[in-house]
């Protein structure tokens, strides 16, 4: 059988930003720096904030649970290293500004020791009951590692009100620069497959797809091979390369031609979408009983001296990682957590990474728009490019202008809340308007307004 690597599935809209993945896609995953100190954020993801289970001065073991919450939508945090709790203090957080973190001083940490667990050939997911899988996933503190960080247990746990039939494993990695999932798919293929099988078992889905963009033929090949030898009933689907193909709503509409209702979540139409890294983490948690304490982070970008993919403990500071990959170049002007389309720019590099950070990218002036008129907005031409690329079929320019002129009701009437903030509109705008920035602002203003003035 000849392997088909050309993607046929796609969604409406989207853009083709320069991929820039060649910086790191041939570099295997390496062990990270020998950290002296990690900061474990108590707020790592969507959902309730964890309460610390340790106090200042306590000794903690690697893998020890140090924070948890009773809420349904939550996941515990664990210490990645053995050491002493130095303090529990506010640390810079990418999304909410400052957040409580447990600072742990490492005690003789050796980065080369820890790696993904081995999956034996005789692995059989039927050895584990669905409840056991869900419980392990919850105990291991696994959250979606693609970006949003929704607690995985909540996703895969069977819900009688929303029966699930399809499991989609998201290996698209549509954001430019990032290669952590790609490397994972090449190097830890079996772990991923094992995780997929476990997730399928837990969620009771009948169909399982692994979706990979067709600009990663090697990954598609590797996955196919592994599926043939190891995983029955799993289908590897090449998908057209387009941003934001990795968004779960886009992926579902591309693959199944089904649409997640606006403001809803995939389980509403019986679909579970998991990131490949999450799948690997599930395998680790269930098979080797290891909590989610390490992840692969791509440190890349033209502003970094030696880009690479590193397997690092969660809580490592950005500065340390950048330092480990050779430090920032003189002309680096922006450091981003996440991809260049949706990631968050940071200036405070002491920030510890969280479970959801897949990449640290340092860009130079050239990448962030070194052209003549960069940084200067010109008026909106109503050229309609943003409408064409909008994957959610919205009218971004109208929403953005309504927000800009403080007409929130107009913005709401044009479905501001359906925006997924993929940034495609800002990317194509010839007038350099921060369309998605305005829309995000508008969402916040609207939420504020609703909170302030109850009906």
């Amino acid at each position, binding site marked *: 059988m000849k392997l088909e690597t050309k993607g046929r599935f796609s969604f409406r809209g989207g853009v083709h930003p320069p991929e820039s993945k060649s910086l790191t896609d041939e570099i295997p995953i390496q062990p990270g720096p020998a950290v002296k100190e990690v900061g474990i954020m108590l707020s790592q993801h969507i959902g309730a904030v964890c309460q610390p289970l340790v106090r200042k001065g306590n000794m903690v073991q690697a893998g020890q649970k140090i924070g948890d919450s009773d809420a349904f939508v939550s996941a515990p945090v664990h210490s990645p290293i053995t050491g002493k709790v130095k303090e529990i*203090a*506010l640390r*810079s*957080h*990418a*999304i*909410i*500004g*400052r957040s409580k973190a447990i600072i742990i001083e490492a005690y003789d940490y050796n980065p080369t020791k820890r790696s993904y667990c081995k999956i034996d050939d005789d692995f059989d997911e039927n050895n584990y009951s669905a409840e056991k899988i869900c419980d392990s996933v919850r105990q291991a503190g696994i959250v979606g590692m693609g970006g949003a960080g929704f607690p995985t247990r909540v996703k895969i746990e069977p819900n009688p009100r929303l029966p699930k039939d399809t499991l989609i494993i998201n290996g698209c990695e549509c954001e430019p620069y990032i290669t952590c999932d790609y490397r994972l798919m090449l190097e830890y293929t079996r772990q991923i497959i094992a995780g997929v099988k476990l997730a399928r078992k837990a969620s009771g889905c009948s169909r399982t797809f692994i979706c990979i963009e067709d600009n990663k033929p090697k990954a598609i090949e590797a996955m196919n091979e592994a599926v043939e030898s190891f995983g029955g009933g799993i289908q590897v689907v090449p998908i057209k390369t387009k941003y934001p193909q990795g968004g779960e709503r886009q992926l579902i509409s591309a693959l199944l031609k089904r649409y997640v209702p606006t403001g809803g979540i995939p389980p509403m139409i019986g679909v579970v979408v998991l990131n490949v890294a999450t799948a690997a983490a599930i395998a680790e948690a269930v098979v080797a009983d290891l909590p989610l304490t390490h992840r692969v982070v791509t440190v890349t970008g033209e502003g970094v001296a030696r880009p690479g993919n590193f397997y690092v403990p969660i809580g490592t500071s950005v500065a340390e990682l950048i330092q480990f990959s050779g430090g920032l170049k003189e002309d680096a002007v922006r450091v981003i957590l996440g991809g260049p389309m949706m990631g*968050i*720019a*940071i*200036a*405070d590099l002491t*920030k510890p990474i969280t479970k959801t950070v897949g990449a640290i990218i340092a860009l130079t002036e050239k990448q962030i728009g070194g052209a003549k008129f960069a*940084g200067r907005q010109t008026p909106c031409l109503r050229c309609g490019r943003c409408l064409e690329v909008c994957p959610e079929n919205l009218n971004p320019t109208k929403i953005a202008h309504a927000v800009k002129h*403080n007409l929130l009701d107009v913005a709401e009437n044009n479905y501001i809340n359906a925006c997924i903030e993929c940034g495609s509109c800002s990317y194509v705008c010839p007038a350099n308007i*921060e369309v998605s*920035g*305005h829309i*995000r*602002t508008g969402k*916040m*203003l609207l939420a*504020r*307004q609703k909170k*302030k003035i109850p009906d």
Partner: protein
Amino acid sequence: MILADIYQLWSSAWPAGLTMLGLGSGFAVVLLIASIKLKVEIDPKIEQIHGALPNVDCGACGFAGCGQYAKAVSENPEFLGKCAPGGPETASKIALILNLQISDSGPPERPIVHCRANTADKTLYGKYKGIESCTAANSLANVQACKFGCLGFGDCTRACQFDALEMVDGLATVNYEKCTGCGACSRACPRNLIEMVPFAHEHMMTVACSNKETGKTARSMCKVGCIGCGLCAKKADTFSIEENLAHLDYKKYQPTEDTETAINKCPTCVIIYVGKSAPPPRQPAKKTAAAKT
């Protein structure tokens, strides 16, 4: 002769006069009956406002007639000055009608900005190059070190209808002469820095900081941030310390010697006076020295 003229005029004029008489009385009857039979009960406040309006139904306010305008004003005082025929006179009358309901509950509320850091006082991180709006900037963690302080992009100044706020060197500053206490700025601030407090006195004492960091971190972030040392709480009992931050109970606040001591003892000078004719805030002694190094 004159009599004949008058007679002639009369003879030509009486039909017109009678027609108008009939028309006038007819409408008078119909409208009177209608006004009694078809009366609809409406909110007395709206009726009061309606009475104060010119009742020209000119539409200059953008609403469909005076009745609609009265209703709109009673619900949202922002539309106060829209009546062109009535002018400021009517506006003040309506304000009176509306205020009668509000002003019983103590002194008027005025906004207080809980931050006093100018651009020079703050520790800044990278340059912000995005949308000029606090809400947008607030979504990015690293516009400035202090997560709690004024961002200085002026969401509040834009929200203010009365031009009563301005950005002075990156800090929102209230002009209490112009302020009407509508609270729009308080609603606009994404960091909830602006609090509406009862302004019982000409000028109020306030803790001009919202930083809940520990003293050391706060000091590293801002030259005029509250370090939670508790000196003020020791001096005056209207002060308290919660989460590394001094609080002042504005409802209990009375200018006394104790509060005066507190303001003078504060090591980082975060306790200041605001309001009409407020004295200029104390400057931290180290500021100039620190700026040099």
